[in-house]
């Protein structure tokens, strides 16, 4: 079975969200004798939909909560996307995931700069050490030079 796309999932999600929203609205305005049908369209019929899915799905296609839940379940199984757990926690605590993304990017930039600085520092340390060793222990001058040059230094 082909992998589901985020668009497919989104559709179902949105349907479910609107189902639930309708449910709230209908419940709030519910008058027992007056509007029984509207409510059951959202809730009661969904129950029927479970018991007689083949009949009900024809009459009320993709509108009811339960139906949408089932669809979502089926679709989401095929979704290949993975996300870091940190992000889930981030959203869980009702924060904006884009902020997370921005912070992350900034962190990586900072690391990058640090990395560069270190590289340069070590390179110069290598050169200095090599020069000092060549002076201090002349016997291994050639060896030191070869090692230093091989590791990217430039030692006379």
């Amino acid at each position, binding site marked *: 079975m082909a992998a589901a796309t985020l668009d497919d999932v*989104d559709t179902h999600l949105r349907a479910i969200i609107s189902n639930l929203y309708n449910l*709230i609205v209908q419940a709030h305005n519910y008058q*027992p004798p007056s509007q029984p049908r509207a409510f059951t369209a959202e809730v009661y019929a969904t129950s029927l939909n479970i018991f007689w899915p083949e009949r009900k799905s024809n009459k009320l296609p993709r509108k009811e909560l339960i139906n949408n839940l089932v669809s979502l379940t089926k679709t989401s199984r095929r979704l*290949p996307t*993975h996300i870091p757990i940190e992000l889930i926690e981030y*959203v869980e605590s*009702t924060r904006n995931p884009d902020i997370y993304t921005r912070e992350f990017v900034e962190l990586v930039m900072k690391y990058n700069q*640090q990395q560069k600085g*270190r590289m340069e520092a070590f390179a110069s340390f290598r050169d200095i050490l090599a020069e000092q060793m060549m002076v201090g222990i002349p016997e291994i001058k050639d060896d030191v030079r070869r090692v230093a040059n091989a590791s990217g230094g430039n030692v006379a």
Partner: protein
Amino acid sequence: MPGRLMDEDAAPGSLDLKKDRSQAQGASHQQALPVKSPADTQVNGTTRDGPNGVLTNGASSEQTHTTGNGEPSNMAVATSSAEGPPPLDQSWRSREQNKSLGLLMNRVAQQCYFDLNKTLDDMSAIPTAPSQPQLPNGVGPHTGPDTSEPSVKKKRMIMDFANDQRDRFIKTLVLSDWSRNEEEKARMIDVKVWLDKQTALYRQAEDAVARAKMNMQQAKVPNPNIEGAMEVLATGKASWVPDLGYIRPKKLSAKQLLKTMRDMNVILGTRLSLHEDLPFYFRDYSIADGRVTFMVKDEFEVDLSVADEDPATQLYFIDIRLSFEPTTPVLDDRIRGFLEGKINVQLASKGLQGCYDFLHNFVLTHKLTILQDQATELTRGKWFDCIKIEKLRRSLVVQYWAGLPGPKSWIEIGISSGKQTTTSIRRPATPHISVRWFQRSVEIKGEKLEFDWQQLDVEKCLMHVIERHTASILDDLRTRICALVPADAPFKAKVSDAGGCQVLSLSLPSLRQPIEVRIEPVTGQYSITPPSTASLNIERRLNNHPTADPARWLAGLPCAVVQDQVFKQADLLRWSPVKHLVRQDNLTAVFGEKLQHFSIFTPSRAWSDDWALAVTFSLQGEKWWAAELEERRSELPNGTGRIIKKVTPVDPAPDGQRKDISTSRDTLSQVARRAVGDVAVSTLSAQLKGEHIPHSMQKVFPQGDCEGVERHDRIFPTALFISFSKLRKGMQRGKWKPWAHEAVRLSHHGLVHDARGEGVGSKQVRHDLRLSLDPGKFKELHKHIQNSGERDLALNPHGGVALKFITPFGQPFIKKMRQRLQTVEQLDQCANILKQRHFVCGHLSLSRLQFTYHTTPELSVEMTFPTEAEGITTLKFHPHDNNPHRRVKVMMEQAFNATDSKAFDIFTHTLSLTLPVLQTFNRLEAKDPVCRVIAIHPRNTTWYSIAYHPPLPRCTFTLRTRIRREGEDTSVKWIIEDFHSSIKGQNLPEELNTAMQELYKESAEHWEGMGSAIVADAQGAAEALEKLDGIVRRFESVPGQPQAAESTQQQQQPTDLPKGTSQSNGQASGQANGQARQNPKQSKPSTSSKSSKPVKQEPDLIMLD
């Protein structure tokens, strides 16, 4: 609306997605928790915007159909790797932290459904009764608020549920929106992961550099302080060291010093006597030179002194000397300093008792250390590999005899607390060195080991222990060996101390030197001397099999050694071990005792296959046996073998002389000789029994009178006393009178010695038979035997007769005895006959008789008697060349051997009878030595024919004897007659015939013509023959006369002879002829050949003469 909701659901508690998810996973927990709304509308709002924004970003459509999380990006990285950086580590993507969004949605949807069900169930549980009355009212719909309590409750429930779930789905939607850019973000994470790693690497690099720097510290050589050194060397001072500027105390003068010392002595004396509580072991002390010296025997001496008069102040340590050896001569400063500090502390805190305890323990430890060092030294020397040393904290374990298999033996030298169980001893407990001893892993208690703790020498200790151990082993061995041996056995075992080494000596009388068993102290191995194959063997077995019973083996050793010795000696004596002996199971039954060591020999070839000499060895000494062997088929490949059928014990020496028995060669040969005797006697005895001849056996011991006899012959093992008459009678037919006493003694004299002096090669044994003659018997024989030098027969004047028999060993010789006895009888008869005939007996012995029967010329005959029963007597006449009887020698032999009882009588008679005739024959023949005109043919000893040949007239005469009886007397006469007179048609020449007729009519003193013959006595026959010869010779014819008749006559003679014999011989030829007639058939082949022989050989004989 939302606000209200918010108000109602202000309950705290944020929703944890994970928690919900876990709840969703467990389907059975559907109703576990009521769902709570985290509703934060503001956030909700923002999030709703967020995702929307993202969505509008459009998150490039290419990303929507990425199948995997990182795969496309992977590809991108891989393609760009050719010119760009290396691929990044993406392992984090498959880790637990990276969650699947699809699974998350799935769970959220499930949770939503479960919650819905739960909410509906809860709602249905609430009754809606209050609202029912409104229905029948038929009132239309009212816009007024719903006031029904259950209804409101239900509404709230459903709204709570919906709100809660909506929040969740919105969050999920936010995540989904975020995920549209997921791939790029994932790449970002890759980079970050890589950077993290790099950071870690830099940290490591920093660490490594720092560590290298630290390690370099050691490589640095500190700069020498040359300046300071120069100063110290040049000036001898170190200017930088601060000077404290003390002032030296004034030196004490000698007087002051002495005084001080004395004062100190007094102070010490007072203090020790009055104030100090001296420990028990510090009772021995002396005060001098301002110090007190406590002496503990075998341990140490310590000098202490005081610093103050006050008895409460502590004593101080001055010096210590160890009073045992070996020890370090002087304690060096470090140890002394250490000790001083320690002792002073002890003195300050615990006083003298503390000082003692400390020093005592110090000394004990030191002693142990010395012992340990010595032991270690030992293992490097001759004890290498034989002891094992284990040093524990304060004890030393020395295992000795480490090379021995089996349980170990060791000593433990350690320190025991010294606490006494008995309270009666007053001295306080103090630790001391003690030893525990384990023999073969068993602790030996109660043994007092005498170790010298003053002169420490671990080797000495070890030797002492080993000596004790050895002694106990050997003693134990001795006890066990003795238990195996009967009390009366000559075997002796004793343990003795020879030069510091315990020796178990096992001795048997026959062992030349006792066997000594030692245990080698260093290795613990058994060693057995003197060395021999058996002892080496046992030694090896003892050393290799520690679990076996050494006593049993050692008990067998003396036997084995003696056996070995006997074997060697037997070898020197050229005894050979019996071969092809078959295994037989009944040896114990045969020998009557249990055999352990057993040898069997054939001392010489004389012993044949049926007899052997066996010897058994036990701790009761060795026993000798004469063994009778028997052929027995065996399963062995070589077919038959022999078994021992019967044994008879042989005493190696007469009773009472057992003590000097040894396994010397003398003993062996003596045993062999005795065995020979026993065997011979018992064989004979068996045969005698078989023939029912009464006999008895007796032991005979050397008497005083046989001292002159050679030592070898001194053995008379047994003698047989045999009934003489029965023995003699066995062969005798008819009447026989015993001529000796009934008891005949047969004694044994061993193997016959050859000229070489060795009895080994001969197969003959000698027995002597002794008889006592009846009075008056054998007088004549005695006379002659005396000077004949006869060795097989001896007579003494008292009537004793001794006969010597030399017979093959192990075979009975009764027959020979009988024959010999008969011969003796016959010899006596011969002697008597010779005396009657006045013949001079020259030599008379059992084998030979020689006598002279004519003096001028001296003629003698020598008779050689047969040595065997079936042999014949041979005659030999002297002088060798011209004895007249040589002519008839063969016939005389035949005649002699053919007769039995009176043969000698007849023989002697014939000798004297024929002598003149035979002498005449010789003379006649000597008349014409060239031409053979006369031929004399003896037909018999008393029958001759005389034939004349041409040129003399052909004629033949016979000469024979005839017995004439005249009353009581019988006399033998010769008859000479013409052979042809009895045959018709044969005539002599006329002249001769007449001359003969005349002769036949003549007569003289000794002869008489009878008309046709001449009868003469012995003397007259010779004369008549002379006359006859003279007559015949007168008719000598000229040569060339036909002689045709000669051959026919010659041929006729044998055919005629029997007739003539039968006719004329009659009784005259006496018993000799009669005897010949008795067995003509038997003697025919021999007589015919012999009678034809002389006929043909006659001329040769004459020629020779």
